[in-house]
């Protein structure tokens, strides 16, 4: 039986090279999603292999620096960017301005979108008024709006934040609306029978019920806006990570371009992780209704 086999070490399990005790006793694993472990060993291996390849190609000069920068040069460039900044603007400032734009855009979008979504979920008039606009705007990629927004606002800060506001507005509206529509009628009925007024139902039943979906909306909006801000900065900006890699490209600084891309990936990943952590903290009842 299973007990006869040697018990794998904790390290092997952490690395995903051995299954946990429960999975080891499953006889049918193919098709059972919970029997697929983290495979952490292979993740580590992939990263190590990629870096080794990069190192080797730097040493032996396999790739033209114009297409892909050597590792040592990139590290040097990164140190220089951190110490001296890029084009008289500190590196952290380039990163912060992009993050700041995303946060402002998402907050403004939430500020307008959540009440709008509530109205659409609760009133036929509001639904009728806004449904055509929301449904029409939804499939338009925010980037397609850049030319129009440049015509309206030029390329200053307002333009970028307005673009991100639009990008998150419809996501937030739809999230709030679907949250309101998914409120179980038995909860609303229970609250009325407990003597709650309409405003109390809104505040104490509908609002908490929509929070998980609103949170998912904010998470999605953050992700979309992060992608959009970088793209918008590629088109028109003098600061921000997107503008940094675009300007670096014009000067054929491939290493700065690569560093910029790594930063974009890392920040996007970090935003997602922070949002997931906040979600567990703030709406622990998600999916438990």
């Amino acid at each position, binding site marked *: 039986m299973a007990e006869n086999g040697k018990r794998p070490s904790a390290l092997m399990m952490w690395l995903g090279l051995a299954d946990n005790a429960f999975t080891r006793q499953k006889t049918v694993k193919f098709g059972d999603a919970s029997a697929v472990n983290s495979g952490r060993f292979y993740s580590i291996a992939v990263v190590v292999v990629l870096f080794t390849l990069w190192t080797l190609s730097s040493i032996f000069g396999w790739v033209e620096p114009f297409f892909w920068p050597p590792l040592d040069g990139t590290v040097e460039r990164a140190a220089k960017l951190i110490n001296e900044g890029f084009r008289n603007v500190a590196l952290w400032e380039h990163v912060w301005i992009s993050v700041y734009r995303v946060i402002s855009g998402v907050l403004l979008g939430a500020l307008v979108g959540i009440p709008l979504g509530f109205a659409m979920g609760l009133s036929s008039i509001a639904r009728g008024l806004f449904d055509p606009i929301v449904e029409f705007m939804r499939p338009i990629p925010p980037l397609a709006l850049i030319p129009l927004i440049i015509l309206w606002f030029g390329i200053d800060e307002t333009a970028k934040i307005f673009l991100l506001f639009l990008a998150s507005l419809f996501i937030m509206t739809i999230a709030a609306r679907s949250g309101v529509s998914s409120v*179980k009628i*038995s*909860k609303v*009925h*229970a*609250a*009325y*029978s*407990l*003597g*709650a*007024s309409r405003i*109390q139902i809104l505040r*104490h*039943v509908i609002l*908490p*019920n929509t*929070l998980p979906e609103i949170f998912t909306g904010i998470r999605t909006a953050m992700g979309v806006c992060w992608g959009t801000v970088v793209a918008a900065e590629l088109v028109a900006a003098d600061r921000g990570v997107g503008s940094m890699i675009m300007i670096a490209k014009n000067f054929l600084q491939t290493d700065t371009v690569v560093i910029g891309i790594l930063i974009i990936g890392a920040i996007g990943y970090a935003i997602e992780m922070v949002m997931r952590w906040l979600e567990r903290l703030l*709406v*622990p*009842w998600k999916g*438990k*209704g």
Partner: protein
Amino acid sequence: MDGIHIDNVSMTFTLPGAADIHALKDVSLEIGAGEIVTVLGPSGCGKTTLLNIIAGFLSPTRGAVRLNGHEVRGPDAERGMVFQQGALFEWLNVERNIAFGPNMAGRPRAETRAKVENLLNLVGLAGFGEKPVYQLSGGMQQRVALARCLANDPDVILMDEPLGALDALTREKMQGLILKLWQETGKTILLITHSVEEALFLGSRLIVMAPRPGRIEKDYRLPFAERGLTQDPREVKSSTDYVERREEILSMIWSMEEEIMAGGTGE
């Protein structure tokens, strides 16, 4: 306190492109204050519809429900509800679920806290006040639902298959709890169930409804709920008169079900 007066209530659902559904036709029923009444009947005979009308969530096509000297026109704290499941507020812990009614009414905190403490003891959940409701078992959740309803001190408690989602053993325990609550609070209780056993054991009165159109077929007065307060439930449920009644009602419901099968879908 006053009973429930159901006066010639009819309910017709009119759906576009389909025949009207006569969910209830001329239902009249007087329920005295402090009675515990169970309602039984085949699926689709209008039990939930009747309860929703009494609760005030639906207004009947004809007729009216009266209580405490006024006509029912909407939901009100005088009529508490206990649903089958999923009506607890999962974002609140047990204590705050139970305190929901008093909190909405703006009752003083100290008073509410004492009341919640009492109710937790009454339904056997002492010490669980801080738990999130989604960490409780189905039976415990229904205890919370009962306590939440009682915290509001309604005149009438309406329950739609409150024990329907529970396993047989938990169900028996909860039946005992409902009888105990009935005895200790003296509330008027109307309880819908699919279980003949449960309807017989819990109802000092048992209403059997028939479908198409939904109507009251039989109205029994029964001694078993009173007996259940003092005797062992097992004994009550194995006594000869209980068994006889059970068989009688079971065959009545069976013949209704067979009629439905034979009658197809038409009304």
